[in-house]
């Protein structure tokens, strides 16, 4: 009898692993250290796969990429102190883009908390403004319930990162495991359906509108509402423009697609928004990169704003009809009662704008846009694309035609350089049979280049297209346009990326001529190894069109 009881005792680490399994977690990205050892010891026997990254930031971005590609929560793990603080950029990235990420950090034993112990950092304090919620577990009996709550909070409502801090004595101590039962979070009731009265008002505006435009954001993707969005657009004959985060929410090759809007959006999207009489914002938050000068944004339009987060409504612009609810459910409510009177004249006008102001570039020399088009063509548009941040990100957004949700994975809100490569590792883990490309710059790839070791270690055949112009290109572009070509500290002396890849056990390809683009891409895709392709592109190519910062979006350069 005594022996049986002993058997039922579990360490906090074992309880955590059991809870992760109950949540359906089969993969974690992490980096061990002293304070998290009891958890690692439990992971040693578990059925959960662990990917050892080479930096905790890589673990956070990989878990984030995994979550964005799969729609399931990403899980990362780090030790206390510097391990935990190295997650911070990754957590903030996930917070800005509403990604369900659950981060577990080791902490010094509860008896040492607050005494500046070795590798102690107040990570719950540090991450308070960049998490949806966080927890410090002080009693092992609270552990199972806390894990359950953490996953619930991260994945429901507007998704977001949740951090759970685990003091070493909590994960080391043994107790008999007890099921935590149902969670109780009386302060947390994420909305579902929209208010029917508001839905009716929105539908009335849709029926009256002569020039409607749909402006769709990442919320459409997190809600899984792409099909409902397409049905609404087709019913209204309303052109659809998406934010950076919304790319893939609506098929980019659809006749009603306007591509991306905003600072580096298409001219036709910005013109259509500026001319519309009804703007239907769906799961988007009127970011400054989208609206430009906010007073001149969609000046003639009534605005319907559908979002799961009530605090987004009225935050940046005044809205005529707000609907708080899950985008998918709200769109279904709308579709159920909408009897549309589409206006073909508007559709024709928009089609003319598309013809008149296409996205273009001059084909002299090796152009980054041609590389992005090349990736699209060689993969038949079926690749999963991650990006770094800067020009590479904007060219990827403009010139790859995204047709499916969760295929464009990029740090939109925080704009984190160094995101794309570790994220691509997470995406490749989530989608082992798909082609994954990180479209990178020579600056940002060097911010998490150590993850090459991870990709080689776990045989993840991630492809990295480095659009190498020897500059921090987007900053250089701003210096060219707004700082009188004073290129202060934006020129980079780079390593030989081919040799570097080879040193890690990956493959490297150098491309200097347009004719070499396709063969290099084909070689990379065929290779079972991770591949760096170093594209030596036109050094001073700019991202165009461009709305100068603070300007109205119909006033574009380029």
């Amino acid at each position, binding site marked *: 009898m005594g022996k049986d009881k002993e058997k039922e005792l579990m360490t906090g680490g074992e309880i955590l692993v059991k809870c992760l399994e109950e949540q359906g977690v089969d993969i974690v990205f992490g980096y061990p250290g002293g304070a998290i050892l009891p958890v690692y010891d439990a992971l040693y026997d578990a059925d959960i796969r662990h990917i050892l990254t080479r930096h905790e930031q890589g673990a956070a971005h990989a878990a984030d990429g995994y979550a964005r590609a799969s729609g399931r929560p990403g899980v990362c793990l780090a030790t206390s102190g510097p391990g935990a603080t190295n997650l911070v950029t990754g957590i903030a990235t996930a917070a800005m883009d509403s990604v369900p990420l659950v981060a577990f950090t080791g902490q010094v034993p509860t008896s040492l908390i607050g005494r500046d112990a070795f590798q102690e950092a107040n990570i*719950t*304090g540090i991450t308070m403004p960049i998490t949806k*919620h966080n927890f410090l577990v002080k009693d092992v009996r609270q552990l199972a319930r806390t894990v359950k709550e953490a996953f619930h909070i991260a994945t429901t409502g507007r998704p977001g990162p949740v951090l759970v801090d685990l003091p070493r004595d909590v994960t080391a101590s043994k107790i008999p495991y007890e099921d935590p039962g149902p969670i109780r979070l009386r*302060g947390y009731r994420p909305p579902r359906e929209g208010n029917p009265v508001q839905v009716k008002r929105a539908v009335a505006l849709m029926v009256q509108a002569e020039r409607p435009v749909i402006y769709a954001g990442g919320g459409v993707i997190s809600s899984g509402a792409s099909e409902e969005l397409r049905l609404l657009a087709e019913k209204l004959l309303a052109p659809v423009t998406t934010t950076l985060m919304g790319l893939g929410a609506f098929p980019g090759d659809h006749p009603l697609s306007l591509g991306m809007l905003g600072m580096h959006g298409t001219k036709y999207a910005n013109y259509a928004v500026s001319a519309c009489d009804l703007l239907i914002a769906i799961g988007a938050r009127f970011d400054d990169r989208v609206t430009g000068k906010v007073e001149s944004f969609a000046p003639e339009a009534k605005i319907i704003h559908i979002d799961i987060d*009530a*605090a987004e*409504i*009225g*935050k940046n612009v005044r809205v005529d009809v707000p609907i708080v609810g899950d985008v998918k459910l709200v769109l279904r409510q709308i579709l159920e009662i909408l009897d549309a009177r589409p206006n073909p004249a508007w559709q024709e006008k928009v089609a003319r704008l598309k013809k008149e102001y296409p996205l273009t570039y001059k084909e002299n020399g090796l152009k980054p846009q041609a590389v992005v088009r090349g990736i699209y063509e060689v993969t038949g548009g079926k690749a999963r694309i991650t990006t770094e941040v800067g020009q590479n990100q904007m060219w990827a957004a403009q010139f790859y035609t995204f047709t499916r949700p969760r295929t464009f994975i990029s740090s939109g809100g925080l704009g984190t350089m160094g995101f794309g490569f570790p994220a691509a590792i997470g995406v490749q883990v989530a989608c082992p049979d798909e082609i994954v490309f990180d479209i990178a710059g020579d600056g940002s790839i060097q911010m998490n280049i150590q993850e090459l070791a991870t990709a080689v270690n776990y045989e993840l055949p991630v492809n990295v297209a480095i659009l190498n112009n020897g500059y921090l290109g987007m900053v250089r572009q701003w210096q060219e346009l707004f700082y009188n070509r004073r290129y202060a500290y934006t020129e980079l002396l780079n390593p030989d990326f081919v040799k570097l890849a080879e040193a890690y056990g990956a493959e490297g390809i150098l491309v200097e001529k347009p004719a070499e683009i396709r063969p290099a891409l084909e070689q990379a895709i065929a290779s079972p190894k991770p591949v760096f392709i170093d594209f030596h592109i036109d050094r001073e190519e700019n991202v165009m069109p461009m709305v100068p910062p603070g300007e109205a979006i119909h006033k574009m350069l380029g």
Partner: protein
Amino acid sequence: MRRTFSVLVENHPGVLARVAGLFSRRGYNIESLAVSHTEDPTISRMTIVAEGDEAVLEQVAKQLRKLIDVIKVQDVTAEEHVERELALIKVNADATARGEIIQIVEIFRAHIVDIGRRTLIIEITGDEKKIDAFEEAMRPFGIREVVRTGKIAMLRGSKVTSVTVKEDE
């Protein structure tokens, strides 16, 4: 514009930091803040007076509601309510001034709670205006120190702001 929010929060460690952090990082102004237990030991109440324009104050309420540890946010400004603050005022009071001070204390229905050789401590409760007026009345005697609580508020009549009762209704 000023509003008084009655905010019910989980009685968890760190909840005050979450609320205070929200105000500072979003650039909202807190005029006053009072925190205490409620009739339910698992719930605390924060009475927050915030200042800003209509749009900012609407955001304050919405952002507060987003915090997981915040159970309920009620803007009591528009409703009939009683609000009170308490102040302790230490004022110079030599023998010649004492009589006059005591008269004023009586007019305001305040109390003297400590008598020193040269000073008095006066306790006064009331709404903000009353306490301001009293402070002004004391100023000529020489105020040594003022300690004021934040404002607390309660709805008039049988209406309440607590969670438990709301769910029973």
